[in-house]
């Protein structure tokens, strides 16, 4: 049975700088970066050396824990540098691209005729597997497990998020092929979760999957929310998750035999002069994406959205999974308490509490928010505020406290297996304590990974 669910608990943070529906194709950057750090918990083993020539789709490294999972380069060229940190940890692998993109070509595959094992091994060997994540733990799926279901989110509800329907225009076949491939990986159902108002025919007419409708506030588009409301994860169960854009990338490989990781990303945020969409590769320098389009110099570049994205410098790179780059002002200024500070009227402060007059403003009013924490870290005092933005039947504050105190039994009992750090992004936003909640949940998940999996 497909379900129709309205998410009431949540918060739509209304930010300035939504991307206009126009796509600019960026030329391939001279340098493309692949960073093992984009994949949480990965322990990479390189298969290339500096100076090797690679085609797009050639394996660069694999995961020591799961040697069958290959990580492939999105661009062709020469391995220019392998950047290591202290203790020789691999940070970045830089590819110097040639004038033309050369793909490692394989034959198109008709998924419907392929066996389940074939589909899996093709995805593993050709760099498609890292697009599949698993719950619990929110890491790349363990290929030795069989998931009870696969969840694909068909929209993103985060602030200034890219419009999936717009990005997927004309990719119906790829998306369908991708979904067909996924259905070979599970004995259970493949759920495609869409937003009934924004989803176009690209999404609504997919076959062979269960289509669930999610409306309401963010985090309606988070796959964790969707799993919880459709088929929650119990201890010992596995669910794999993807978003529809990545599914289309997988489908495209099966249809064409070409590993084309190029994405249409939204460049957005209040500090961008003309926010719009760009077609580019993951690992492209941020500088190249935002060039000539930034209003101020003192800004923060975020690969991803403002709630869960990674902070980047201009010379760093677009993250592997990100469909969005957001640029917002830095907030490292003192703010006098009666004007812009904590006791001011606060017409510029967006808050989920009703302590600022902005809660009376119409829904059309958008805000420019900076990176200031708006206060110092404190102990938990206010209760009940996290529950308002957390649409799970899980007690968020208690779970966060269990994670902070490394209480494994507590975390298990309170539902750590169902959640990912991104599910707590809004909690982190609204919390009076200013504690980095997503980081605490990640640490909790790491403890669980070590002790219980």
């Amino acid at each position: 049975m497909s379900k129709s669910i309205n998410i009431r608990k949540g918060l739509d943070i209304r930010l300035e700088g939504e991307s206009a529906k126009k796509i600019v194709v960026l030329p391939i950057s001279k340098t493309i970066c692949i960073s093992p750090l984009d994949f949480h918990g990965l322990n990479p083993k390189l298969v290339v050396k500096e100076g090797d020539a690679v085609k797009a789709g050639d394996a660069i490294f694999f995961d020591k824990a799961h040697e069958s999972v290959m990580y492939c380069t999105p661009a062709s060229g020469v391995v220019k540098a392998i950047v290591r940190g202290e203790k020789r940890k691999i940070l970045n692998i830089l590819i110097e691209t040639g004038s033309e993109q050369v793909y490692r070509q394989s034959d198109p595959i008709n998924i419907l005729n392929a066996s389940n094992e074939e589909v899996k091994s093709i995805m593993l060997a050709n760099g498609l597997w890292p697009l599949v994540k698993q719950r619990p733990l929110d890491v790349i799926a363990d290929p030795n497990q069989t998931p009870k279901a696969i969840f694909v989110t068909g929209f993103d509800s985060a602030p200034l998020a890219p419009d999936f329907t717009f990005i997927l225009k004309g990719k119906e076949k790829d998306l369908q092929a991708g979904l067909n491939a996924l259905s070979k990986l599970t004995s259970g159902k493949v759920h495609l979760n869409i937003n009934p108002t924004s989803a176009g025919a690209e999404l609504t007419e997919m076959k062979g999957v269960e289509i669930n409708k999610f409306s309401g506030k963010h985090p309606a588009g988070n796959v964790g929310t969707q799993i919880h409301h459709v088929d929650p994860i119990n201890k010992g169960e596995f669910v794999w998750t993807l978003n529809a854009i990545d599914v289309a990338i997988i489908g495209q490989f099966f249809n064409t035999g070409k590993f084309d990781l190029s994405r249409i990303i939204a460049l957005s945020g209040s500090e961008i002069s003309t926010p719009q969409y760009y077609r580019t590769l993951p690992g492209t320098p941020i500088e190249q994406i935002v060039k000539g389009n930034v209003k101020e110099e003192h800004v923060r570049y975020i690969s991803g959205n403002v709630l869960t994205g990674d902070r980047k410098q201009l010379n760093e790179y677009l993250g592997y999974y990100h469909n969005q780059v957001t640029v917002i002002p830095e907030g490292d200024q003192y703010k006098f308490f009666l004007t812009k500070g904590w006791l001011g009227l606060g017409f510029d402060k967006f808050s989920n509490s009703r302590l600022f007059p902005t809660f009376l403003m119409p829904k059309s009013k958008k805000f420019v928010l900076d990176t200031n924490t708006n206060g110092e870290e404190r102990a938990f005092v206010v209760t009940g505020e996290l529950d308002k933005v957390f649409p799970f039947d899980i007690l968020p504050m208690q779970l966060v406290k269990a994670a902070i105190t490394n209480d494994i039994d507590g975390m298990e009992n309170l539902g750590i297996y169902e959640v990912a750090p991104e599910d707590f992004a809004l909690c982190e936003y609204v919390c009076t304590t200013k504690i980095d909640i997503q980081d605490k949940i990640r640490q909790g998940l790491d403890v669980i990974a070590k002790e219980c999996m």
Partner: protein
Amino acid sequence: MKFLENILHKMEPNFVKGGKYEKWNPLFETVATFAFTPKLVTTKGSHIRDGVDLKRTMMTVILAMVPCLIFGIYNTGHWEMVAAFGDRDLSYSVFAIDKFWNGLMIVLPLIVVSYGVGLGVEFIFGMLRGHSLHEGFLVSGMLIPLTMPADVPLWMVGVATAFAVIIGKEIFGGTGMNVVNVALTARAFLFFAYPTSMSGDKVWLAGTETDGVSGATALGDLATFMSDKPAFENLSGFNQEYSAWGAFSGMIPGSVGETSTLAILLGAGILIITGVGSLRIMASFFAGGLAMGLLLNAVGGNPYLDIPAYFHLIIGGFAFGAVFMATDPVSASQTANGKIIYGFLGGLLAILIRVLNPAYPEGVMLSILFMNISAPLIDYYVIQGNINKRLKRIKTA
């Protein structure tokens, strides 16, 4: 404000690690972060954060107490006049501003002592632990004078405040870590350590030692119904002294901030609209009180048991406790369902103690303290309920 910012900048190097006044860093930080929201930026996770912080939250609670404070000052002045004239009616002819001034002279020292001692203790602990002042005491420091009888000696307020901050809060780890409500700890300390100064006929009117006026409160008079020597013959006699409107508006003797239900409801409005105070706790607390009032009515037998149930909600510290004390988020239940149970039981117990225990004319303080201690137990069962739902899912799956 650039000017002020520059001064702070100039002073900062002296107070950071290795500076001349390194030890005094918590003091500097407190002043600096009060005057300016610091320039801290997000480093991990969400890049933007809500405008709300603990300072603003606490300031809102203080704002919500202002109606009580203003009325309390006026009312204290009024009853001081009553005591001075030896006549209840005469003092109504005095100008409001004079009463206010008189009241201010009594209440202001209470506030100064409470904040002075409390913040002093907090600073000492802050310096020992190396952190700036956390905001919790801003609220407690205002609650303490509002729960005191006007005539309480100032040194007692100082001792009680120090006790409450040290034993009630700081030994547990400071703001956000206390088990019981700090302001009530102060009041309970005085109540048990110096009972003669906290209850009885003598303390409610400033300067009652010499006069012929009864200084009792409505609760004190009501409690006499339970003894052999009632202050009034029956309820109508009581009602002549304390009308429902008088009790609601607050023109009766009592602790500084507790008498006016009207002013308290104004404060409750502020807390509820801003979402700082829990509507769940307030509503269920009143419901619990009303339920126990009705139950006692049903039992009946003497005028105190027969008093209309709603009367319990407007006399004594019931409303003040429900709105400002029970809702303290740190010592109350922390789960949504737990809050309802906590509030309801709190209200129930408050009236039960008030009516049936002759030793304590007011039960709200004890009831809330008891519920503070029970709150973790309530939360435990609510959390366990949530856990069991998850376990059941596995079994049925």
